[in-house]
């Protein structure tokens, strides 16, 4: 009997101990979660310092997102456990709609001064993109990392080409010229490009999705709870990629287990973003020259080339006691001065209009010429559609991608149609 009572006491104690460790912030403090990327932590540090100097009554405490498998899961855990911060600045645009519909985000357009400020900073096309299904705005477009085509200048010149390929035909042509079996063992060991053959849903952001946006001038995947990508653009993109793998212009084996294959000239191009620049500058061999250009488009395509920008946005959770003050703090992050700091400290592009022509930033781009092309592209950058099941949409597309592009078991028409049908099943009530 004694033991039983002791056991019950111990268990209750343990429960109390674990339950009592809640992350409550003090009354006045605004809790701001930034990503745990080193540069972004430094950025947050500076902005918070400046704000705290000018606003001692409403201090901001910045904190990198707690450790975990992925920041998305951490946020979900925080929402479920009701331990959300006041501000979170690394939310992927595709996640926002689900949280908005769950009612855990503050409708920012109800805050004083928000709409004026945001229309001054961002393109109206961007604002339409981030508007939720119910007409409100729950996120602030903060930064983008556009996907473009990086290419090895020397390899292009060696093939006698005047420049990097812009259309699918030019791409095939260059691929054929570059394809080689260097060591004569009967297996090709040099490919024009490479994209991971993973079926993971987010891998499509580095192949299918930017190509689709480029081909279709920024068309939607889903709209009004329906799949709208069953069109000639998606089919063309699937066909383009399927041909690349069928003709072994893209390697089907996993090349990531070695050292960087682009810098080693094993591949001549890659679909990638500005983050690669820092890595390339650090590790490139002597004499290696590279640059970026737009994503390839179908032959006959006219007009600017769109792409995907991996947008990360800022949100305010409803648990925040003073959203107006939180907004005032966020404003300091995204003024021209704040955006310039973002560029200088993290080398990531603010999602601001006229980035390439605004004199405030001209110095930065003169010193960082490789970033200039991203600034010019930012007008044609698309994020994601506002849908609460976006992850699944990409997962279903990925499965058809695997069957068609990598294994050649379906025609592009069949694959795109099957993907659209599967997506539409998601929306059945």
């Amino acid at each position, binding site marked *: 009997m004694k033991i039983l009572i002791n056991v019950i006491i111990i268990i209750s104690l343990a429960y109390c101990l674990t339950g009592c460790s809640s992350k409550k912030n003090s009354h006045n403090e605004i809790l701001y979660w930034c990503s745990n990327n080193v540069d972004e932590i430094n950025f947050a540090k500076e902005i918070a310092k400046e704000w705290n100097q000018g606003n001692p009554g409403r201090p901001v405490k910045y904190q990198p997102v707690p450790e975990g498998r992925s920041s998305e899961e951490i946020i979900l855990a925080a929402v479920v456990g009701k331990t959300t911060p006041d501000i979170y600045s690394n939310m992927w645009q595709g996640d926002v709609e689900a*949280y908005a519909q769950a009612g855990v985000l503050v409708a920012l357009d109800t805050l004083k001064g928000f709409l004026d400020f945001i229309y001054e900073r961002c393109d109206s096309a961007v604002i339409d993109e981030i508007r939720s299904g119910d007409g409100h705005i729950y996120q602030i477009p903060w930064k983008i990392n556009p996907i473009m085509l990086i290419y090895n200048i020397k390899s292009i010149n060696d093939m006698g080409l005047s420049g990097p390929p812009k259309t699918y035909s030019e791409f095939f042509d260059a691929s054929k010229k570059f394809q080689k079996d260097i060591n004569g063992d009967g297996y090709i060991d040099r490919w024009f490009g490479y994209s991971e053959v993973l079926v993971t849903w987010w891998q499509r952001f580095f192949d299918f999705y930017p190509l689709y946006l480029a081909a279709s001038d920024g068309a939607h995947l889903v709209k009004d709870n329906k799949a709208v990508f069953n069109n000639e653009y998606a089919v063309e993109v699937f066909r383009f990629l399927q041909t690349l793998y069928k003709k072994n212009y893209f390697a089907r084996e996993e090349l990531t287990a070695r050292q960087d294959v682009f810098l080693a000239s094993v591949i001549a191009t890659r679909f990638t973003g500005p983050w690669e620049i820092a890595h390339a500058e650090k590790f490139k061999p002597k004499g290696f020259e590279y640059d970026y250009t737009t994503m390839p488009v179908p032959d006959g395509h006219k007009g600017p080339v769109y792409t995907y920008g991996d947008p990360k946005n800022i949100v305010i959770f409803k648990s925040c006691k003073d959203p107006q003050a939180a907004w005032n703090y966020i404003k300091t992050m995204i003024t021209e001065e704040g955006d310039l700091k973002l560029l200088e400290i993290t080398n990531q592009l603010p999602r601001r209009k006229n980035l390439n022509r605004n004199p405030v930033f001209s110095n930065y781009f003169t010193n960082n010429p490789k970033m200039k092309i991203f600034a010019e592209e930012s007008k044609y950058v698309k994020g994601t559609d506002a849908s609460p099941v976006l992850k699944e949409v990409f997962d279903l597309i990925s499965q058809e991608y695997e069957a068609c592009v990598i294994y050649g078991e379906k025609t592009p028409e069949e694959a795109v149609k099957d993907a659209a049908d599967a997506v539409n099943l998601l929306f059945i009530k």
Partner: protein
Amino acid sequence: MINRKKILPYLLVSPYILHFLLFVSFPVAFSIILTFHKWNIISPMEYSGISNYIQLFNDKTFFKSIGNTLIFLVIHIPLQITIALFLAEILNQKIKLRGVFRGAFFLPVIVSGVVVTILWQQLYGFDTGLLNRIFTGIGLDKIGWLIDPKIAMPSIALMATWKNVGLYIVLFLVGLQTVPPQFYEAADLEGASHLQKFFKITLPMINPTIFMVVILSTIGGFSLFIEPYIMTGGGPLNSTVSAVLYIYKQGFFYYHMGYAATLGLFFALIILAVVVIQKKFIETEN
């Protein structure tokens, strides 16, 4: 005045009652209720009638996952029983160092499935995996163990057999030792060969052990999850998605709690049906 003696037994079993209510009866009841709702954890539950069930019956991938699990069982169980029986029979003879050999066979059993999976992922590697290197070394073609949709699940079944066969060797050894030696002695007098003794005496006598092994492996096989999760993520072409992996994905990746509960309920009923059929089969055999 409470009669201490009388309530004592109830106090002793009370932890079980609590546990049963909280972790068995409530979950089962809640599970059934959940199948009629849509819920993604962060929003309130939404009544949805039988739409989850309709979705289930249209879900090609779910039925493929059940099929994949069955393919796994159909390969894994006979393979395992054959090898385990063979090695147990050998170990049952008077051999030296039996303990050492038995210990070696049993080693993979105690190690975590995670370790075995990471290890075999390397052995199965197409370009530089140990198995393919051996194959090309002796002049055979490379095999796409994990990248050929037709071979991927059998490869996982092979790995699972390797991992578990030691346990079943041990179980068979116990069963073999229950066979009275007089039977063998009588057969020896009649000049029976080893094979004849095995098929006419040993096998019938250890039928109960064989049936037990079948049921254990079946229940274990239906919980296949961590191996495909780590090794292939369900690919290629969804050929290695096990039922539990699919349910996990629906519930803990997409947070379709209602739909995942529906899948779980349906799958649990299938397992119960299979086990009941197996038990009935054993009863009629006996």
